[in-house]
């Protein structure tokens, strides 16, 4: 950006208590001409009320089909340093845990090759290296690879799986989200790096039903920790909560969605009706010292989540109510491979898994991928009688 160019609108956004991305852009602009041009281009967008980026082209690094988002400005004359301004998606470590050392390594590489601007993190979970020339792609990758980093996904492939902080810090984790995320990401490197499917596919892992990575909304496959038996109540701790002034009836029991909890205010005792509890996490959230998940832990697998394009936003729905979730995660891997194969065979271009299942019907899906139908898959049965009968159904009845 020419030295004298002013950014009065953006300057406005340096004011106020929330940390400013404009300040960050200016810091980068000091060292990097592309970042400097970006400031100017964004100011222009604020004037024009429109974006100034062209539809991306296909750029990448050797051996990979994705991981880079190509980007070119539509004002290359004015902002020559943005002629090429691609983004690289770098796969993050499970749970977004870093040491300062590891972060500095990335910064150093990025200082050398790119704009110096980043997103920590992208919405799918990757480290986003924002803005570089085509010629810098391969060298950047090479150095990242040497430093132990690899690319995330883009295009019609698996996207970087992500997971909640899980057992690293959270007492609620019902399986090792970090390990599973690491394990399956390594297992599915080919799927992650070489687009081959009808469309993108996302996997997110939450250690419990609080779903701190929003898996149910944001992933085609949502792995949500749970247990098969009953919550464990520590009556001593219940008493302490009661004595500390908590209105257990109102705060805990009355908000239990299944009314599975009974509180004896006199005895200060809390009991659960095991078959009524839907494992929603509410009571545990309210009294983490007194209530714990059951002992037989694992996860529910839900599928189909995605945002609004094309057939509306879908949330994932129950596909397997309970699965043990332990290394080497073979049951999960087998299942997801079966499902991918089926999707790959039946899906139209740019049809997400959820949309395909909706289009052909859950029953067909279950049959073809070999999963048993259970009532947990639906809130309620069908309200129409439009049943498809199969030849084998008639044999049964004979």
């Amino acid at each position, binding site marked *: 950006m020419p030295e004298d160019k002013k950014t009065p609108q953006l300057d406005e956004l340096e004011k106020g208590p929330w940390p400013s*991305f404009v300040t960050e852009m200016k810091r980068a602009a000091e060292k990097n001409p592309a970042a400097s041009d970006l400031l100017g281009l964004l100011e222009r967008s*604020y004037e024009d*009320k429109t974006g100034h980026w062209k539809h991306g082209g296909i750029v990448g690094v050797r051996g990979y089909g994705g991981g880079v988002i190509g980007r070119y400005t539509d004002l290359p004359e004015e902002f020559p340093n943005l002629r090429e301004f691609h983004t690289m998606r770098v796969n993050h470590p499970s749970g977004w845990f870093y040491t300062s050392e590891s972060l500095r390594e990335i910064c150093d590489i990025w200082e050398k090759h790119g704009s110096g601007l980043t997103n920590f993190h992208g*919405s799918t979970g990757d480290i986003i290296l924002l803005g570089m020339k085509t010629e810098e792609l391969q060298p950047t990758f090479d150095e990242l690879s040497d430093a132990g980093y690899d690319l995330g996904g883009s295009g019609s492939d698996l996207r970087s799986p992500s997971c909640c902080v899980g057992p690293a810090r959270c007492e609620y984790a019902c399986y090792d989200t970090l390990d599973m995320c690491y394990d399956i990401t390594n297992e599915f490197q080919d799927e992650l790096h070489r687009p081959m499917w009808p469309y993108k596919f996302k996997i997110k892992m939450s250690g419990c039903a609080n*779903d701190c990575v*929003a898996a149910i909304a944001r992933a085609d496959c949502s792995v949500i920790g749970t247990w098969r038996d009953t919550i464990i109540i520590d009556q001593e701790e219940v008493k302490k909560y009661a004595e500390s002034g908590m209105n257990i009836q109102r705060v805990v029991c009355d908000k239990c969605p299944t009314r599975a909890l009974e509180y004896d205010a006199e005895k200060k005792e809390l009991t659960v009706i095991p078959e009524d509890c839907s494992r929603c996490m509410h009571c545990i959230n309210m009294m983490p010292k007194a209530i714990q998940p059951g002992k037989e832990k694992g996860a529910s697998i839900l599928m189909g989540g995605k945002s609004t394009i094309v057939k509306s936003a879908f949330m994932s729905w129950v596909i397997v109510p309970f699965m043990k979730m332990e290394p080497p995660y073979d049951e999960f891997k087998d299942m997801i491979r079966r499902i991918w194969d089926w999707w790959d065979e039946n899906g139209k271009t740019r049809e997400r898994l959820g949309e395909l299942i909706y289009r052909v019907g859950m029953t067909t899906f279950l049959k073809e991928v070999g999963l048993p139908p259970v009532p947990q898959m639906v809130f309620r049965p069908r309200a129409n009688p439009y049943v498809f009968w199969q030849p084998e159904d008639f044999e049964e009845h004979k």
Partner: protein
Amino acid sequence: MAKIDIGPPDYRKNLHPVIIKNYGQWKFHDYVKPGVLRHVAHSGDMLYSIRAGSPRLVSIDFIRDICDLADEYCGGYLRFTSRNNIEFLTDDETKIEPLIEACEAKGLPVGGTGASLSNIVHTQGWVHCHTPATDASGIVKAVMDDLFEYFKRDDLPARLRVALACCLNMCGAVHCSDIAILGVHRTVPVINHDIIRKGTEIPTLVASCPTGAIRPDPKNKSVVIKDEKCMYCGNCYTMSPGMQIMDPENDGIAILVGGKVSNARSVPMFSRLVIPFLPNNPPRWPETVEAVRNIVETWIKHARKGERVGEWIERIGWERFFTLADIPFSDKCIDDYIFSRETFRTTAAFKY
């Protein structure tokens, strides 16, 4: 040549020693103060997480700054959250206050835990994408500045999750947020036939339209749009640069509310459209900031303790929400897409 398919770095190398020691052995957590979590292990060990807000779009200098903080107060250990906050991790209670001071000194606000407003999940906007109907970072900054106090307080009725996406692709996954700020186009794409003739697979383009508004035009080797069937989703533009969807005049923002993803208490819910359009008014988008604040304040005023925005609205009824929040009901709020029927009120029991 560099190795390929090496996979992500091993997270285990980045874990704080107290985490390694107590991995999977945490007993409970509590809140030291807004922005500071304490996790207590069965062993008796403790881990403190100090959460600081980040603009997400940051320079490497910023990353180095926080590395310095981590080095000074936390032995170099830190992480990011699923909502792009920074968490400094330490087992040394005495480091908390000095760290907070150092953060604030650098302009990093500490907060966002418990029943507070956390960071706004967002997207690229005019900074890097080709299809935005609005900017991302700018609006987030404006809204967070305005609602700043709620990031620092944790006494809201429940946690408050705001998200922004700059177009209907919804990279910010706003569809299940307490409050969603969504960039929307409102006019039919302008077709550039040359571009389409050059590089577009016409059948795929035609198929991409959710409402079947695009027809092939074989004579012209291009396509035509049935204007009245188009609802400006921009999916065709994703398929072909020849379907220009951006319109500086008429692009803007829609507000959806009431989504959630956790399974606690109530089932996950979609956000729902309550304000169909607000204009793009950079640099501070006052209409949007005001609309979000109004919804937040109405919620704080009327919700019961523990009620997320959507839970509160579902209890009182959406018809009451429009009254209480003083938002005019628009026919645009009525669904007319595939699953519309389920939203129609099939009962004579409703409020005025």
